[in-house]
C-alpha cells in the first residue's frame, strides 16, 4: 500500500495530487526549484525538498536528483503529473528498477504509446480506426496515387522529416498529387537532406474528442466518457467540455468500446486518454494516447463523481476496479476554461511577472485548480497555465452561465490573461449551439468579437470610472490641505 508519494511536478497539478493524498492520509513529498521556494505546492506538502535551478532540465527533469529525494525521503511511490517526466519511459523504468511505485502505465506500455508509428500499428491490429492513409512510407508517386484514390481526395502529403507546416501539402486530385509529390520531396531534401513521404486523408471541420480510459493491473478496463476539446489555438486546448454536443449515448458506447480495445492493444494500465479526431461526417479516427493524467481531467471527475487521483492510487496499489462499465453514469454538464498567462492580442504571447492581487472564483459547482495566490509570481520558466476554472450544471446552459459568472469574478493583477476571450466565446451563439471545430477561433472571428466586447464593457463602466477619478482627485486635494486644517472625515478613511 502506498503511504508516501513524491510528486515530481509543480503548479496546480502538484496541488491537485497533494489534495487527494491529504484526504486519504497519504504523506506527500514536494520537490521544488530555485524559482518555487514560495510556491503553494511546497507549502501544502507534508515535506518539501529543493532539487535545483529554475530551468526544468536542472530540476523537474533531473531524474537522478528526483530519485535521490525519493530514496532519502522514504517515498514509496511517485506521481508524475503531466508534462515534465510524466511520459518519459526512461524515468518510469528508473522507478521500477528502484522499487518505487510509478503511478501510471508500465515503462513498456508508455514507450509503445509514445512511438506514433508502432502505436498506430497496434491500433490497426486491434481494429481501432486511425486517420486513413498509407500504412507507412510510400515508396513512389504511383503508390501515393493508388492510396489517394482508395481513401478519396482531398489528401495530405507529409514528409515525416518535416514539421511546423513545412514539407506538407494539401492536394485534391491526381494532377495536384503528382506535382505536390515532387515539391514535398525536394523541399524535404533541401531542408534535411532526405525525404520520406506518407499520405493521409485531409479532414475538414474536425472536432477534437477524447476519451478518458482506465484499466487496472488485472486487465479490467472501462472508459469514463468523452471530452470535447475542439476550441484550440495553435493545437493547444483552451476550452473543454463534457459531454460533447455531438456524442449521443449510442456513439458514446460504440466509440467507448474502441477505447477499451485501444487500452488493451497497448497493455495500458492506470488512467490515460485516447484522443480522436471526429470528421464532419461523424467518423472517429484515433490519433494518440496520452499516457498520464490530463490537464482537463476535472470535468470528467465532475460528471462521473469519481476522484481520478484516488483511482490512480488504487490501481497503482494493484487493486481491482471497483466498478464495471455499466455502473458508470454520466451526470450533468461540465466545462473547463484554461486560464493562461498570455496576451490574446499579441498572438497569445506569454505574459509573466508578479501577481500582487488575485481573486479566485468559488461557489457551488465551481472548481478552480490553481497555484495563484496574492503575492505569487508567474514564472517565465514554466508553462502558461495559471488556473483551470471548471463549472458543473445539470444542464449545459446552467454550466455555461455559471462559467460566465465565475470568469467575471476572476481577477488577476499583473499579467495578461485569456479570461476576456473566454467570456466572448461563451457568450457567442456559435458556442452556445455547440458548433465547435478546431478552427473555431478563426472561423468565427472571435478575436474581433473580443475587441468589440471589451469596448462595450468599458462604455458600461465609464461613469463609475469617472466617479472614482473625481473622488480620487478630491482625496488628494484634501490630503494636501489636511496638513494645515483638520479634516477628520478624510483622515478616517486613510489606512
Amino acid at each position, binding site marked *: 500500500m502506498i503511504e508516501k508519494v513524491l510528486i515530481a511536478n509543480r503548479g496546480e497539478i502538484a496541488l491537485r495530487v497533494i489534495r487527494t493524498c491529504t484526504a486519504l492520509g497519504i504523506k506527500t513529498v514536494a520537490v521544488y526549484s530555485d524559482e518555487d521556494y514560495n510556491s503553494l505546492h511546497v507549502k501544502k506538502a507534508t515535506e518539501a525538498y529543493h532539487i535545483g535551478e529554475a530551468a526544468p532540465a536542472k530540476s523537474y527533469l533531473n531524474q537522478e536528483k528526483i530519485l535521490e529525494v525519493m530514496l532519502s525521503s522514504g517515498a514509496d511511490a511517485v506521481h508524475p503529473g503531466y508534462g515534465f517526466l510524466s511520459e518519459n519511459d526512461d524515468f518510469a523504468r528508473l522507478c521500477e528498477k528502484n522499487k518505487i511505485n510509478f503511478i501510471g502505465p508500465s515503462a513498456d506500455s508508455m514507450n509503445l504509446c509514445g512511438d506514433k508509428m508502432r502505436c498506430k500499428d497496434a491500433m490497426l491490429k486491434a481494429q481501432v480506426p486511425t486517420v486513413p492513409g498509407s500504412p507507412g512510407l510510400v515508396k513512389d508517386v504511383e503508390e501515393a496515387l493508388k492510396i489517394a484514390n482508395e481513401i478519396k481526395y482531398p489528401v495530405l502529403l507529409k514528409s515525416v522529416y518535416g514539421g511546423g507546416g513545412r514539407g506538407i501539402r494539401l492536394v485534391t486530385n491526381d494532377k495536384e498529387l503528382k506535382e505536390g509529390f515532387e515539391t514535398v520531396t525536394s523541399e524535404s531534401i533541401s531542408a534535411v537532406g532526405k525525404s520520406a513521404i506518407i499520405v493521409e486523408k485531409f479532414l475538414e471541420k474536425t472536432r477534437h474528442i477524447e476519451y478518458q480510459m482506465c484499466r487496472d493491473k488485472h486487465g479490467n478496463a472501462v472508459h469514463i466518457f468523452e471530452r470535447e476539446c475542439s476550441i484550440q489555438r495553435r493545437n493547444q486546448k483552451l476550452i473543454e467540455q463534457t459531454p460533447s454536443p455531438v456524442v449521443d449515448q449510442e456513439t458514446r458506447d460504440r466509440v467507448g468500446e474502441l477505447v477499451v480495445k485501444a487500452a488493451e492493444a497497448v497493455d495500458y494500465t492506470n488512467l490515460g486518454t485516447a484522443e480522436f479526431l471526429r470528421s464532419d461526417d461523424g467518423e472517429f479516427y484515433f490519433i494518440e494516447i496520452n499516457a498520464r493524467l490530463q490537464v482537463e481531467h476535472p470535468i470528467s471527475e465532475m460528471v462521473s463523481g469519481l476522484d481520478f487521483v484516488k483511482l490512480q492510487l488504487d490501481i497503482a496499489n494493484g487493486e481491482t476496479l471497483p466498478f464495471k462499465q455499466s455502473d458508470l453514469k454520466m451526470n450533468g454538464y461540465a466545462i473547463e476554461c484554461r486560464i493562461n498567462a498570455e496576451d490574446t492580442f499579441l498572438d497569445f504571447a506569454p505574459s509573466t*511577472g508578479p501577481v500582487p492581487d488575485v481573486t479566485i472564483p468559488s461557489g457551488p459547482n465551481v472548481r478552480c485548480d490553481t497555484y495563484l495566490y496574492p503575492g505569487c509570481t508567474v514564472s517565465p520558466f514554466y508553462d502558461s497555465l495559471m488556473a483551470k476554472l471548471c463549472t458543473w450544471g445539470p444542464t449545459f446552459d446552467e454550466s455555461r452561465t455559471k462559467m460566465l459568472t465565475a470568469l467575471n469574478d476572476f481577477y488577476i493583477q499583473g499579467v495578461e490573461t485569456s479570461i476576456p476571450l473566454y467570456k466572448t466565446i461563451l457568450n457567442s451563439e456559435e458556442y452556445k449551439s455547440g458548433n465547435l471545430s478546431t478552427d473555431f477561433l478563426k472561423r468565427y472571428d472571435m478575436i474581433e468579437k473580443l475587441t468589440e466586447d471589451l469596448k462595450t464593457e468599458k462604455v458600461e463602466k*465609464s461613469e463609475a470610472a*469617472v466617479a472614482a477619478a*473625481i473622488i480620487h482627485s478630491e482625496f488628494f486635494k484634501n490630503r494636501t490641505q489636511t496638513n494645515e486644517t483638520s479634516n477628520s472625515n478624510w483622515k478616517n*478613511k486613510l489606512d
Partner: protein
Amino acid sequence: MDYKISDIEKNFDGKIIENNGNNDYVIKIDDREHQLRILTMDSKGIEFILDQKYHKAKYLSTLTNEMNMVIDNVPITLNMNTHFDKIVYKNSGGVGSGGVQTALKSQIPGKVVSIAVNEGDSVKKGDVVCTLESMKMQVAVKAHKDGVVKNLKIKPTATVAKGDIIADLE
C-alpha cells in the same frame, strides 16, 4: 474637470457638487446628478456606492493627467484635464514633430534564442529581428518600422524584460 477614456470617443465632464459629510456626496457627470457614498478608501483604491450600485476601483498608477484603474475587474485608462481640447492638441503636436519612436522594445519577457540581424543591417517593418523564448514558446520580435539596425542591445541566451529595448531602428 474633463475626462477621456481610452478607446471611447466620448468625453465626460465631472465634478463634486455637494459634500454631505458622513462620506456621502452628490456628483455631476455631464448633465446627470448622482448620489455617491464612499465605503472604504485609501491611496490604492476605493469602494463606493454610486446611486444604488456598488463599485470597486483599484488605482494602479496615477500621473497628473492620466490614471490607470481597474474598476469592477475592467481595466480603464483615464486622461483628465481642466480643459481637454488643449491636451489633445499638444499631444498630436508632439507626435507630429517627433515621428515614430526609433527604439524597438520587447513586448514580452523572455530569453534570447536567436538574433536574425546584425548592426548596420537594413530591415523592413515586419522583419524578424530576434526570437525570444518564454514559457516553452518561441516568439518572434519584429521590426516596428523600416530602418537600419543600430545599438543592438541583446545577446544570445540573455534575458530581456517586457519593455526592454532590443535595438534602435534609424
